[in-house]
């Protein structure tokens, strides 16, 4: 059963971690926070039609993704994994392009990035991770598949099927659930029978770990252990990182219709970035001037990504027909000609 300690209370400590590691966490979390803020502003300015914020979930994403090896692992995200993508080294203008609706899956190269396409079917990519992991073992590689999903997706049949398959095949997968406690408007108690996603692992014969999702070090330690185990042939692990969606589900959402913001305020105060900053200062991993320099660098990088995506060319439709098939069909070619003659701007 999951540890009862990880209930998302109190401060965190990074004494047991290396300064290099926590400085990397801080840089990525700070950058993701700034990029998130820029993205919300772009939505307000009408540049993005909509945006899904990762605010408050940076520790869960950065701590987990930092435990992976982008040269041999493979990440299967859903649509709220911006901080994980950034940490993993995905080309971020291409990643954010999906939020500007330039291309549904984003414009980064998923195979070069080893980071799957942004996927709006929650739970859908989880069996992909299992397939990739089974394939990795078949070819004798030691890569690990990371499957991201949320508390809402934990209700999807695909997630259960995937965990069962992974258990049967001893596949090197980390099932990483960011439990942000809200599946759009539906809270955990109306979503998760039994109250724990981590506890479900037991039924599939897998280790299940509940971790404080706002404690980046705790997330990293748990994920690194799961990755090590998977890499060494020990099979899958389920990690439930308990966090909170402090922003609306998306910029189109109105949480006033379904939740008491006093609860959200408590979680806003327990900001993972501030927790890390305080812990780093206490542990002597950084001083104020160092952090100020990182803050400035993060802001600059976020602005660069913002400008990159805001100034990216609009799709002109010339690729509408290009990728439907590897070998196109006469009918599709005919429709392309129709588009050229009757539609092309």
């Amino acid at each position, binding site marked *: 059963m999951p540890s009862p300690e990880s209930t998302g209370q109190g401060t965190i400590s990074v004494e047991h971690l290396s300064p290099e590691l926590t400085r990397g966490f801080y840089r990525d979390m700070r950058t993701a926070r700034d990029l998130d803020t820029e993205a919300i502003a772009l939505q307000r300015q009408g540049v993005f039609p909509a945006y899904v914020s990762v605010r408050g979930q940076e520790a869960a994403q950065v701590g987990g993704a930092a435990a992976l090896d982008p040269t041999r692992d493979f990440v299967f995200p859903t649509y709220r994994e911006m901080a994980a993508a950034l940490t993993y080294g995905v080309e971020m203008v291409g990643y954010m392009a999906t939020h500007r609706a330039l291309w549904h899956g984003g414009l980064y190269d998923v195979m070069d990035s080893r980071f799957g396409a942004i996927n709006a079917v929650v739970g859908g990519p989880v069996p*992909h991770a299992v397939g990739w992991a089974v394939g990795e073992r078949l070819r004798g590689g030691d890569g690990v598949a990371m499957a991201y999903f949320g508390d809402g997706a934990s209700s999807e049949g*695909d997630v259960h099927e995937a965990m069962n398959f992974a258990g049967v095949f001893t596949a090197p997968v980390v099932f990483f659930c960011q439990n942000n406690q809200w599946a759009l408007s539906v809270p955990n108690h109306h979503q998760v029978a039994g109250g724990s996603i981590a506890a479900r692992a037991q039924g599939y014969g897998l280790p299940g770990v509940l971790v404080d999702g706002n404690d980046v070090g705790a997330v990293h330690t748990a994920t690194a252990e799961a990755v090590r185990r998977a890499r060494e042939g020990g099979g899958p692990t389920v990690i439930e990182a308990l966090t909170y969606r402090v922003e609306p589900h998306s910029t189109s959402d109105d949480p006033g219709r379904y939740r008491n913001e006093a609860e959200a305020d408590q979680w806003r105060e327990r900001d993972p970035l501030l927790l890390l900053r305080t812990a780093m200062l206490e542990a002597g991993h950084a001083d104020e001037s160092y952090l100020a320099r990182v803050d400035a660098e993060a802001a600059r990088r976020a602005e660069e990504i913002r400008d990159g995506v805001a100034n990216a060319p609009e799709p002109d439709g010339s690729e509408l027909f290009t990728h439907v*098939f590897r*070998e196109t069909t*006469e009918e599709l070619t005919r429709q392309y000609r129709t588009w050229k003659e009757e539609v092309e701007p």
Partner: protein
Amino acid sequence: MTELIERAAPATEGETVELSMQQAINRALRVLLTEDPEVLVFGEDVGTLGGVFRVTDGLQKEFGEQRVFDTPLAESAIMGMAVGLAMNGWRPVPELQFDGFAYPAIDQIVNQVARMNYRTRGAAPMPITLRLPSFGGIQAPEHHGESLEALFAHTPGLKVVAPSDPSEAYSLLLQSVRSDDPVVYMEPKARYWDRRPVRLSEPTDPIGASRIVRSGRHGTLIAWGAMVHKCLQVAELAAEDGVELEVLDLRWLKPIDAAGLAASVSRTKRAVVVHEAPLTAGLGAEVATLITESCFRDLAAPVQRVTGFDVPYPAGPLEPQYLPTIDRVLLAVQRTLEY
């Protein structure tokens, strides 16, 4: 059934042997597993058992448990797994045991398999061939006699094929699995035991090509899967009355051979399309439209459709009343002649 499976080495090009359709598919799978080390065969009961129709019989023994394996019983995860395997460089050939059980996997097939190449702008191709025992005619339980071709053909990104005899089954499977696009390969269960001399040949026609199975000049019967056999029976009977019917095996239900349809019907001036699936929004409507678009002035009569009825696929004793009968097809031919 098992003892019928021949365990010869993969066929040599052009060899002619007597095989049932299920054996011909088995032969094709052996060729594919032999020629391409990245081909994987998996699904429910395909390993140790060799499949409920014995199509994969002997494959696990010959190619090992890594290349041919059983999965747990979950169709969505089988297709989801195929996506992940493809993203790791494999060429998956999953089986979903029966047509009706493809429905639980529709999300993965339509939202993931069909779109991943598009979503990733060509970075993550899906060279997946879904083998799907399909259609009716074997008096099976509910959900074991469905015809899903219109659903798949309507999905951008999928190619769909239905072989009609053992030779076709062999070469079309080679072509499907070697294709870098996802293909739904619909096996007509009712013809699995159709045993005849099979020419084991490499595919020669391009993907999407139909074929004329019997030539005629008074009208064209258009069908796929098991209905091709039925149409040949119809043509035989009609010939006794001096009516010479052409039988066109569409084979590919996406892409559809519009030029092949036009070439035949512009000559014969009459067309009857025959399928097992229900009438409304069935593929017969697409075929009829393509013919009307290309042959409007040549047509001597409106295109006729002889199909299953718009009812759920019925229980065994009613199956002969649901499926297109020889008499119904003959009546449709007569309507085109008397129009």
